[in-house]
């Protein structure tokens, strides 16, 4: 009897929640329609019909080939893909670098600890936009011309024309890469491999360095949350410091790290919109150009909002799934 009642209660709760969601959505649609209506009444053309018209501008780089005769929606898609193209490598670098620095902040060596602490304090306390502009300035003015690049690593060349790195290529023209193509220095600069534009290098490096400072603090907090007894137990078993970290500490620390890291990845993705200031053609840059050419500011901003919301929800979803895997299993 009582079970039936609670079941009915659950149904009711579902229905109420569904109605609420519908009401909120309806409200959003209504506000949007109203805004468009007001714009129309002032003689402003509005609506999303422009998306199928030819864009008329080109996009300098990206994974999706785009030329000026293609429609606006494809320009937005190219912009979105460029956002992902910047955010994903930046997230990977930020996590790797941040983890190393976080561990470094707890290292027994004073100098190493000091350097890591200084890194965190400087990088997280200077606004990201300022850092990006500084990086862009340094790239442009301090690095040599493309004809005289600096070799960072074998096959990695850096100049004010950008970064060249080895890239998988297929010898037989098929889909599947068969070997790495190595950039080589010639008379007219570096050729071969993948040439990354200075704008792209600036945004990926800037986002990575900045986010790494926050990741470092998250990792440090996670490690400190593991009880000292666990470390002592590891020592008693004769594990080396590296093994203690890898086998004992990090798996337990992840539980604390992952939820905060989710936040960090979300803000990294959203921060990638600052790329517009350094000339990298991501979503916001495409929207800006569109606003300039047809003045549909309201619609473009709405698209940006919807896309970032969707990206953030996807990241949250993925990270929550991962979190469920690393979380402490027990009484639920």
């Amino acid at each position: 009897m009582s079970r039936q009642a609670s079941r009915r209660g659950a149904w009711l709760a579902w229905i109420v929640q569904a109605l609420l969601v519908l009401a909120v959505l309806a409200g959003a649609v209504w506000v949007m329609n109203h805004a468009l209506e007001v714009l129309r009444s002032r003689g402003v053309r509005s609506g999303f019909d422009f998306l199928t018209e030819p864009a008329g501008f080109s996009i300098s780089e990206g994974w999706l080939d785009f030329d000026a005769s293609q429609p606006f929606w494809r320009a937005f898609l190219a912009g979105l893909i460029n956002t992902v193209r910047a955010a994903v490598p930046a997230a990977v670098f930020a996590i790797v670098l941040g983890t190393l620095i976080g561990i470094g902040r707890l290292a027994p060596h004073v100098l190493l600890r000091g350097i890591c602490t200084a890194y965190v304090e400087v990088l997280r306390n200077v606004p990201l936009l300022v850092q990006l502009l500084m990086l862009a300035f340094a790239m442009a003015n301090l690095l040599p011309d493309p004809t005289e690049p600096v070799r960072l690593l074998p096959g990695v060349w850096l100049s004010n024309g950008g970064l060249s790195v080895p890239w998988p290529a297929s010898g037989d023209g098929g889909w599947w890469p068969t070997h790495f193509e190595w950039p080589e220095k010639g008379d007219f600069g570096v050729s071969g491999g993948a040439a990354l534009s200075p704008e792209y290098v600036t945004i990926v490096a800037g986002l990575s360095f900045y986010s790494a400072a926050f990741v470092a603090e998250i990792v440090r907090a996670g490690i400190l949350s593991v009880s000292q007894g666990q470390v002592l137990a590891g020592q008693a078993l004769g594990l080396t410091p590296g093994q203690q970290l890898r086998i004992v500490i990090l798996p337990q620390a992840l539980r604390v790290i992952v939820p905060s890291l989710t936040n960090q990845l979300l803000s990294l993705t959203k921060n990638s919109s600052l790329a517009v200031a350094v000339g990298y053609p991501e979503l916001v840059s495409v929207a800006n150009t569109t606003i300039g050419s047809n003045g549909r500011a309201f619609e473009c901003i709405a698209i940006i909002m919807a896309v970032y919301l969707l990206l953030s929800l996807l990241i949250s979803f993925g990270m929550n799934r991962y979190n469920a895997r690393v979380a402490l299993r027990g009484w639920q």
Partner: protein
Amino acid sequence: MKSRFRPVLAVAASAFAFAAAAPAFAGKTLDAVKQRGTVKCGVTNGVAGFSAPDTQGNWSGLDVDTCRAIAAAVLGDAKKVDFVPLNSQQRFSALQAGEIDILARNTTWTLTRDASLGFNFTTITYYDGQGFLVPKKLKLTSAKQLKNATICTQSGTTNEKNVSDYFRAQNIPVKTVVFESFEASFKAFFSGRCQAFTTDASALAGLRNKEAPNPDDYVILPELISKEPLAPLVRRGDDEWFAIAKWVPNALIEAEEFGVTQANADDLKANSKDPAQQRLVGTGEDLGKLLGLDKDWSFRAIKAVGNYGEMFERNVGPKSVLKLPRGSNNLWSKGGLIYAPPVR
């Protein structure tokens, strides 16, 4: 059961009331300006010759003078202008939303902007065209040699689209790198990121003379790839304000044509017998009242900023850093395109 729905109905009713009360602007701008005591004028963040603040925050430029002339005509004081710096993406929304009364921000008059953004363009105050600035060491003599070049420009402008149109028509592949701010885009060019920089030719001259590390290292290519008629614009639906924004610049152009200057305006007011001059200095028939202004509207505007030729000379002409020739911007009677319908 009925009572449960009452709050919902109340919310819905108030929402519809809100929907019905869409703000109306028609005919209100002049009243708002008079009540506020200032003209809100949208300008750039700093483009030499058109609108740029000095170190004390005083604005100067051709567009700035247009706004000052309107303030002088409407409020009797050229200083009563609030300059609102806007970037190229913000400018149109700011005017649509009513944050500014007039946008004088070297904005190109195009069909799309005129017919779909809810604006009225007023009088063309500068005939511009888009050009290219390149380093001299590349030894380029024509824009057609820019094959495979990287070109820096600012996003949200007509420039970006013109470049794409021009090189597509010529079937010349180029790459454009766009920056959000004008400053970032030209700095990238001067640091060597791009082989060419493109914007309106007037701004190119300013950049070369003011911002280049060494002006002699750069040349402006001969091609102008577009028509860029620059005009101030106002919101649609307020014909009274539109007329004022249109006729103040027209009066300044006509003042040049009939030889009324900042210096001789007082003298002409006292002594001139020429009906055209008399209308401009407020001693002929009263045209001001047709605009909702007083008889001295154009006299004050001329006293404040001089006639169009004086404005040109001071801001972009030989006496300025830009040192631009009059060219297309000379009076129609002297072989240029500057022509105002008669002030009478």
